């Protein structure tokens, strides 16, 4: 009987991954993202120099040994980009994880339990949504001082509300659906309803939004770095771009220096949007995560 069930489920419902892999856009997105992740994971092997080491003359143009040239102190920009990939993706994924966990928890709890819990949580969400997030992020980062932790904290604190709101509205809809009520009349306890009825039905929304949160984190970090609010010791794409702008890259022919971080960010963004969009297409098109 278990064999039979496996066969049915293999061909029946659990084809999410299969569907995702049969989607051209999703494949393209996954390939880009995976290559970036591989670069990030192998950063120490791939980068020829330490990102902070003064290895050559300052402001060298791109060459074979320095594909993106060197910066104002003679540090290798290519190595900085490689290490930047690692840090940017780390920030992206960690903040996305934080946003997803916080957003999902608050969203589901708020949507399912309703009444005062909902009211209280949604007021917080409203406040955080209305407050100009980039601006407040800057504010908090200024106060906390530059550093990886403070960057992550501000990104997560200001990033979760839209997610919570979306999950909440989905949960609200689900809560009113008859299948939840049929579980209630079947005597199902709350944990079962939350875990087995609500959660599986918001999971695709969570994934789509969670993956979009990665690019949110990357861009937020880049914005903070661009204002000099990220630690200059650790290179992220934003830091490289900040340096490029600050050290007058354009006046030293450092076009590659300016283009590289932006293109990497854009690639991440495109990859992630493609994946999220594919997930949207595959699952319920009514709750469009991409359109937020």
């Amino acid at each position, binding site marked *: 009987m278990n064999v039979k069930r496996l066969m049915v489920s293999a061909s029946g419902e659990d084809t999410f991954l299969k569907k995702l892999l049969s989607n051209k856009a999703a494949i393209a997105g996954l390939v880009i993202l995976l290559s970036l992740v591989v670069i990030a994971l192998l950063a120490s092997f791939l980068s020829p120099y330490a990102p902070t080491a003064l290895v050559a003359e*300052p402001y060298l143009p791109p060459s074979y040994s320095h594909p993106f040239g060197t910066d104002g*102190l003679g540090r290798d920009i290519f190595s900085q980009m490689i290490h930047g990939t690692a840090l940017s993706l780390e920030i992206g994924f960690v903040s996305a994880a934080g946003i997803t966990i916080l957003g999902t928890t608050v969203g589901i709890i708020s949507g399912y339990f309703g009444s005062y819990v909902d009211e209280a949580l949604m007021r917080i969400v409203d406040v955080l949504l209305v407050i100009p997030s980039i601006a407040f992020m800057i504010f908090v980062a200024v106060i*906390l001082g530059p550093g990886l932790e403070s960057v992550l904290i501000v990104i997560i604190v200001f990033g979760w509300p839209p997610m919570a709101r979306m999950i909440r509205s989905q949960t609200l809809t689900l809560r009113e659906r008859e299948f939840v009520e049929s579980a209630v009349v079947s005597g199902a306890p709350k944990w079962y309803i939350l875990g087995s009825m609500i959660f599986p039905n918001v999971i695709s929304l969570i994934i789509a939004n969670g993956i979009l949160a990665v690019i949110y984190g990357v861009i937020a970090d880049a914005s903070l770095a661009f204002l000099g609010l990220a630690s200059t010791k650790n290179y992220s794409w934003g830091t490289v771009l900040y340096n490029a702008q600050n050290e007058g890259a354009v*006046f030293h022919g450092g076009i590659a220096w300016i283009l590289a971080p932006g293109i990497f960010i854009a690639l991440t963004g495109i990859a992630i949007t493609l994946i999220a969009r594919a997930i949207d297409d595959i699952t319920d098109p009514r709750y469009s995560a991409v359109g937020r």
Partner: protein
Amino acid sequence: MKAKLLAAALVALFIVSGLTVAVGNTRAATAQTLTVGIVNPGPIETLNPFYPGGQSATANSQLLGVMYLSLLSQDPNGTVVPQLAQSWTVNSNASVFTFTLRQNLKWSDGQPLTANDVVFTFNAFIHNALLDSFNGFIVGPLIKNVSASVNNTEVQFTLYHSFSPFLEYAGLGKVIVPAHIWSHVSNMTNFSNAGNPVGDGPFVVTNWVPGSSVINYKPNPYYYGPAPKIGGIAVQILSSTSNIASLLQTGSLALAQPATNQISALTGVSHMHLAFSPGNAIFGTYFDPAGLLMFDDMLYPYNITQVRQAIAYAINRTQIVQLGLNGYGTPGSQGQLPNSLTQWIPNNLPNYTFDPAHARQMLLGLGFKNGTNGFLTFPNGTAWTPKILDTGGANSNVVSVMVQNLQSAGIDASESVVTIGSLVSALEYGTFDMVLLTTSRPPIPDFVLGVFALNTTTPIGQQELNYHGWTRWTNSTLWNDLQQARQVGTFSAQYQLYADAQNILATQVPLITLYYGNSIWAYSNASIQGWSPATQGYQFPQATLLTSLSGGATSAAPDYTYVYIGVGIVVAAVVAVAAVALMRRRQR
């Protein structure tokens, strides 16, 4: 019908504005105006010379230096020369200072400039310390009495105590304002000086509105010196240096101070020229920034003089200038005084040339050990990992070089970027290893060395509010030297005392001066001819320079072609939509 009217109105507006611009362009083209870019982070809110609120000290001195003069000035070599005062005398114990004004001085409104104005200005300082506090030094409390002579050409200052640097502090650092205007100002601290302020410099501001980002100057017909050769100055306030090279390249500006990393872009352009001061600061107009590495001088191991000396050997100040400042600066001297004060610097000061091996040897000699990771450890074997605090930005580059230097000497240093709050707190409570500070220091030995003129100190962990006390390092000999130097009026006596002080500082190394920055002006010789910095001065607002510049040029006339195209497209779209709407309406 409404739509038609609207369309017609838009077309009319378009044509009218086009004509206006055409007229405006011709006007801009005929005016002989020098366009100058001056960097100020915020909008210019006041042109009050005593109260720089609204702009940075730099911008303030540059903007006001054009229109206000002080009693004395400095020539390009830093020698004190006459300005409003044609001569001065100091009594033997440096407590009475007498300035004799030039004849027939006039304010830009034609009113005579007399000793009364000087007395009025300094009395204001005596009564209001805040007016006096700009530039970080205060003369008011020193003055017992200031009075004008009967013929209104001499001013006599009587001080409470002997204080020889008063000549520079009062003569170079404080501008004089017209008493006939300012005596009617109820609150001199909040006076924004808008409109057409009255000044005495070669140029005066016209029709100035607080907050505007363009300030226009016209020649002052009553200026005592030679009449300017250029028709006027238009200053554009730039929020940062980042766009300066582009603005100079595109001809939007004729004169500005680019960031050091932009200079290479300008040197490639044939008509661009550079004028930069070799670490030569001019009092009252501009302060070259200096980079200082400060130790927590009471904390082990930095309380050991040899450790500080070893660190001084381990830092490559030439490289810092090369990489951190793109080569535009001067490596710091261990005697603390900038190169421009050559006359005060003795030639037998100990020098710490970059020698990492020697530094390592010194430390090993002190009992430090070679650690397993190649870095030195404390004699007891624990790791020594000093942190160099800074607040990020351009300072980071300097620290990066330093970290690299120190590591090559076996010191496992690293950078720690903190907020200004944390930095100040670390300094106040003495909880740090090393700190990179940038500071501006007027070129007066008393001011530079005065930082160390303390004879008390606060223990580590207790709050020290006087920022001068942050070094927590004291030396009674040095303190005595400086106190004496303030009482003697002769150069030779002062020289001896200052030389002794510098010797103490160079030997004890309470802090390391890493570099003196240059102030660099880039200009286009399409607009400016005949600037020879060595004789005319290195700085834009210096009166001698302003009056000798010729070929005062025009700003490039703005090209509105694309505005026209944009507005044209919009208008065409509106007209088309309106026409379609009208036609359809008629159809029905």
